[in-house]
Each structure stands twice: as C-alpha cells, then as structure tokens.
C-alpha cells in the first residue's frame, strides 16, 4: 500500500483502557510517557503497511506447519499436593483466591 499515513497517536484514554484490560495499575504520571512510547512503537511497526500484499494470503504462523493431533489417551497427572504447593493460598484440596464477585453468591462460572 503506497501513500500510507502514520497511525494516529495513542491517546491517554486508550492507554487507560488498555491498562485496565491488562490489569495494570498506572499512575497518571505514567500515562504521557507511555503514550509517547507506544505511539513511536506503532509508527515503527506501521512501516509494514507500505508493503503491497494484494495477492498474499494472510499468514498466522511463521512456520509452515499444521496442527499435530494427539491420541485420546490419559497421560500422567501431577499430584494435587505438588500442584497446590506453589499456590499463594489453599484451602484443603482447593486453590483459594480472593472472593470473586463479592456480595454475590451466584454461580457466574466463566466467560466462555
């Protein structure tokens, strides 16, 4: 693609949203610096947009391979104690985490 224009700057609000989604705690003073840095990174990467890719199929992996499948067999597990040994907190056989959805006892299991 020719005649490409550099991407717009990453705004302070976009930084805040991105940090929120990545669960990063930023102080307000971090934001201008990050905004500058990320904008520069994006501008650098956007030079790729100058390449004409009209007839090139999208590529998602660098290695030309396909997904290998395994047989449906049960393989060795790790013991519960070994698994729980590194847990910051455990309760009997469970991993324990700070209460999710405080004040709610609903089975809001997962996003998927």
């Amino acid at each position, binding site marked *: 693609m020719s005649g490409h224009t550099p991407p717009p700057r990453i705004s302070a609000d976009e930084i805040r949203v991105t940090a929120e989604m990545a669960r990063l705690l930023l102080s307000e003073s971090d934001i201008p610096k990050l905004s500058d840095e990320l904008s520069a990174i994006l501008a650098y990467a956007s030079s790729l947009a100058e390449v004409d890719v009209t007839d090139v199929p999208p590529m998602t992996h660098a290695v030309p391979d396909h997904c290998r*499948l395994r*047989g449906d067999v*049960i393989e*060795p597990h790790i013991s519960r104690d070994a698994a729980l040994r590194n847990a910051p907190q455990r309760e009997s056989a469970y991993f324990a985490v700070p209460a999710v959805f405080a004040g709610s006892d609903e089975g809001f*299991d*997962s996003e998927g």
Partner: protein
Amino acid sequence: MAASDEFEPVIGLEVHVQLATRSKAFCGAQAEYGGPPNAHIDPYTLGLPGALPVLNHRTVEYAIRMGLACHCDIALKSELSRKHYFYPDLPKGYQISQFDQPICQNGFVEFMLGSERRRVGLARIHIEEDAGKNLHIPGGRTSLIDYNRAGVPLIEVVSLPEISSAEEAGEYLRALRQLVRFLGISDGNMDEGSLRCDANVSIRPRGSRTLGQRTELKNINSFKYVQKAIEHEILRQIDIVQSGGRVIMETRGWDAARGTSRSQRKKEEAHDYRYLPDPDLPPLLIDPLWLRSIAETLPKTPMQRRDQYLERLGLSPYDASVLTAERELCEFFDRVLIAAGLPPEPTELTDAQRTRAKQSANWLSSELLGLLNKDNRTITESPVSAESLGELVRYISDAVISGKQGKEVFAKMYESRETPTDIIERLGLRQISDPEIITAACRKVVDDPAMQKQVEKYKQNPKLLGFFVGKALAETQGKARPELLSEIMLRLLSEK
C-alpha cells in the same frame, strides 16, 4: 406463551456441549466429570510456564460429527485462537477457542415443535476448552477453585436468531441434547453441566424485519428453566418498551431460586477479548479422507430415524417419537425388527411386513416400555432381549400362538428372562396350523357313527357348524388354529 399481539420475540441460543473424550482437549489429563477436587490436573491444565497444548484428535472428530449431523460446511482449514480474559478459573489468562475460522459454519438443526417440523439455522460450531469451577462461599472472603474441568473439550453451537418462542427454544435445546447423545459425542447431561445454554433475546414489533436490542441471558443450566428464563426476559423487555423505555445491551444472569434475572454486565464494561491466533497451534488441517470416514460412520440422527420409521415402517408420529427418544431404544428396535423376520434397510417392505413392523413397535412401546418404566429400568436393563421380543412378534404374526397367548408368554419372558420358544414349548401353547393334522381331527368327528344324526341335522341347519368345530378343536386339545379348522370343517360337511 403468546408474547403479546404487539411484539414478537427473536431468540438465538449459544449452547456449550462438553465432549465425552477420555482426556482433555489439549493435554492428557483425565476429562471425566467429577472426581476429587484438583485431581485431574497436569502442567498444561494449570497453565504452568512451558506447558504446550497438543490437540486431542477425538475432540476434532466429535466436532466434525456434530457439524456433519447439522449439515454444516466443514472447514478443511481452521484456526485455533486465544480468547483473553482474567478470571481465576482460567489459569493461563486465555481460553483456546476458535474465532474467525471455526471448524463448522452454517448448517441447521431440525426438530419437532408439536406436530410441526422446524428448522433453526446455525451460524457456526467451534471447538474450545472449558474453564475450571469456582465455588463461591456465601459471605466468604475467598473463592475456591477446582481445575478438574479446566481444559475439558467443548463445542459451542451458535444458532442464528431464528427461534421465535420460549417453547421453541426449549424444543431446540432438547433436540440438541438428543442429537449429541445419538452421535455418541456427549451425555448431554444438563445437571452435570455437559450442556449449558446462553440465550440472546430481543423483541420487535410483530411483522418487523429489523432486530431489536438484544440482551444475553447466562446461566440457564436446566431444561426446566430455559423456557421460564426466556419467557421472563421477553416479558421484561415488553414491559420496558411499553412503558416508554429502551432495552439496553447487557448480560443478565438467571436466578432460578428467585425466578428472575439480574444484570451482570453492561455494555460499557463489555470485554475486548483480544483474540489472536494461538502461536502454539498451527492451522488445523482436516484430511479429506478422514472427513469422509467420519461421514461414512456417522450414526443416524433422531430425525433420520423418525423419517425412516414414518416412511419405511409406516409407524404413527407418536410411535416414531417414542422410539426415537434414545439411541439405545432405536438400536433395540432395529434388532427386534430383524428378529421378527423383516429385511434390513434399505429393502422396501411389503404391506404384511409393515404390519409386522407396527406390531413390533406396539410390543416395544406399549408392553415392554410400559413395564420398564414401571420398574424404573432403561431399555439397556431390559430382562427381555430384542431378539426374544422379535421372536415373539414372529410367533404371533405366523399364528403359532394367538395374540392373547402372546401377552401371557410376554409376561413370563419379562419375569423369567426365558425365550418365547422355551415358554411356548414348556406350556404347550404352540397352535396347530398343519392342514393335515386338522383335517384328520375334523374327519374323526364327522365320520364318527355316533355323529351321523347331527350331520343330517346340519344339512337343515348350518348354524350347527360351531358344534362340529368345538368337537374337532377338543380333539386337538384346543391347539388347532380356529379359523383354519372351521374352514376345513365347513368343506368336509359340505362334502357329506
């Protein structure tokens, strides 16, 4: 429920089906439901650094089975993607799913809504992995996590917004459950979470072509509540619109205990899942030969069975739906038909054979299922084998025993597990159908010198036929086929 005269609901369902594989989708940990907490875990399940996913071939095979049974286009190349979100039940911080290139697209599911055949289109079916389970202790400061379920393979079946009532949504879901059970890819057990349903619900003025603002209902985890939750949501939306408000896009959780739903997440907080092709998993390519072998060994669907029962066997719609409730029942019925002497598919049946097929269906659905239900047994626990039941039908149909004797024999079969042949022999029930034996018995009566006076009387009074039939029947200990015997007797008397 008629939602209202003014509005019509538009419903789409997203159904997660847990696949009945032995091991998990991307690792060799056990996939079986339950077990002590955190027993079915390995480094991949826990998202430990360095653990890499390797896709279970049976996960793919089961997804393809479902796709074929739902008339989908199967993608020979699809992509596995990461869906990111933070939640304690997801140790890796992302779920492996499929995004823009799912393994199955388009297609439809067919089912009966009352006496009407309905078809609901599908957008897609894709493969993904399940998350772990959170246990929330009411009022507690911690939540407990069990990762046994994390990584268990799922398919998500996404319908188009083509369902137009809560009742239809319920039937669609029942049809999916029946289908996955017939295909042998899942037990479809909603209580154990093998089948989970989210519903997208919107309303629009009746007859309108545009879609209204939808809400997503989560957490409808029992058949009992699917209809209730959707009905409730339809009425809630109608209420909002009629009182001048606007439905907002949100996720609502169904609260079965209170019989109501609650907002869980508004649009502003909507997640951006940052989907990206999983760098650990190259594109999933399906060998066309493999696809063909899956198609060739695909079990029949309930609707295919139904059509076969209606068209080939001439069964009633009611019998067809009773017999297609479970795959085991269909397979039992198939064996009954063979044992009853009917040719296997695809041979067309004669009228007499169709009658025999209907008799077989009756013996199975009213007699055997009746007793099994009463005793709380399933067809696989039946004391009467399919072969025995077919044999019994054949004996009755060939007039070896009468229908009435059949019931007696059947009761004994159910009690003692004996074959009908053994019971008929033991009780000496076998009817005599041999014309020679019957003719001999008849001759003995009409040639008896002591009978000649009656024979003369018969010539004046044909009503006496019954008298001679009775005498001859007694000569055979009551075992001669009555119709045949009276036919022969009539001929002998007319020759006198």
